[in-house]
């Protein structure tokens, strides 16, 4: 198809989709409706499970199986990206040149790094109480580590991130999540059943299994994002050669 024919085909299709979708939206309950049957049940269950943050309760307890799948996707993507960006036989590794950094930038990085890391840990740790949790905190942790890239240079960052250790921590966290579920089965209940002591509502250790799963997710996300970013950075800094040059 020529580009024009392709665009025309799509625009015609889009017109039909838009029309039917718009008419369908008119049949939806209006924005802001009060009827949410599943939500009401989920809130009730959250109270029983003594988890203050309902979203965390849904994510790590009531629908923990979804989160297990989601973390597995992250794990698969990390493995996949690492495999795809591996150094192939025809590539050689070059040392990146050291880059001069302004003292003020270095100071900024030195101050920000601990602050971001602390924020990340706090957000992971309070996932069952306040907005946030393993995922958000994990991403903040991962980004925090990369502040050192801004502050110092690539080689410092490289020293900061021990690749193999991070790879393994990621795998370990993913496996831990799946294994935590077995506690339920071992106790004679169902897989991923929240059989631990539920604790007191609105305390740091409350919600039974929730804080543990939350922590595993935090570790997995933080290490996973660092590993992915590291491999992309490598591509811009380190590898040369490879490829056949031009299409065949």
């Amino acid at each position: 198809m020529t580009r024009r024919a392709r665009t025309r085909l799509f625009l015609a299709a889009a017109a039909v989709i838009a029309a039917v979708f718009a008419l369908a939206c008119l049949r939806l309950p209006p924005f802001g409706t009060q009827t949410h049957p599943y939500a009401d049940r989920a809130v009730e269950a959250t109270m029983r499970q003594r988890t203050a943050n309902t979203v965390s309760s849904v994510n790590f307890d009531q629908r923990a199986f979804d989160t297990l799948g989601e973390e597995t996707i992250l794990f698969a993507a990390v493995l996949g990206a690492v495999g795809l960006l591996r150094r192939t036989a025809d590539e050689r590794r070059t040392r990146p040149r050291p880059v001069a950094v302004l003292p003020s930038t270095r100071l900024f990085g030195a101050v920000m790094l601990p602050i971001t890391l602390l924020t990340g840990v706090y957000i992971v740790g309070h996932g069952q109480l306040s907005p946030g949790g393993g995922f958000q905190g994990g991403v903040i942790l991962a980004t925090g580590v990369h502040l050192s890239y801004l502050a110092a240079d690539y080689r410092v960052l490289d020293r900061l991130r021990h690749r193999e250790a991070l790879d393994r921590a990621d795998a370990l966290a993913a496996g831990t999540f799946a294994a935590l579920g077995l506690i339920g089965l071992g106790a004679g209940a169902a897989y991923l059943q929240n059989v631990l002591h539920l604790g007191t509502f609105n305390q740091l250790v409350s919600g039974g299994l929730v804080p543990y799963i939350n922590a595993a997710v935090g570790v997995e996300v933080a290490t996973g994002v660092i590993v992915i970013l590291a491999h992309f950075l490598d591509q811009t800094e380190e590898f040369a050669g490879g490829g056949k040059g031009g299409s065949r």
Partner: protein
Amino acid sequence: MSVLPFLVAGWILLVGMYGMVTSRDLVHAVGCLAVAQSSTYVLLLSVGFRHGGTAPVYSDIPTNARVVDPVVQALALTDVVVGATVTALLLALALQLQKRHGTVDPDALDGLRG
């Protein structure tokens, strides 16, 4: 107003698709996919909104407060993670494509036809 959020979600999906159809650069196409995906967050969270509801976090509100739907928020959260990881994987593929094929223009790739 009562249907606008849903319409916006549909619009975002279609412009994202349009971007993919007309894209001349596969990195750009991955970005357009991310745009198309944000339609799902908008739809899910709009569906779960409740007039007068607050965030479903009970650490500093009374336990009988009216809250918005926490389930769709959990779904949207999952969706955000899924989207980010898939984007990363696709970008890795696009990068490798440049290194192996020397181009990321989808219309310049002729390896697979017929």
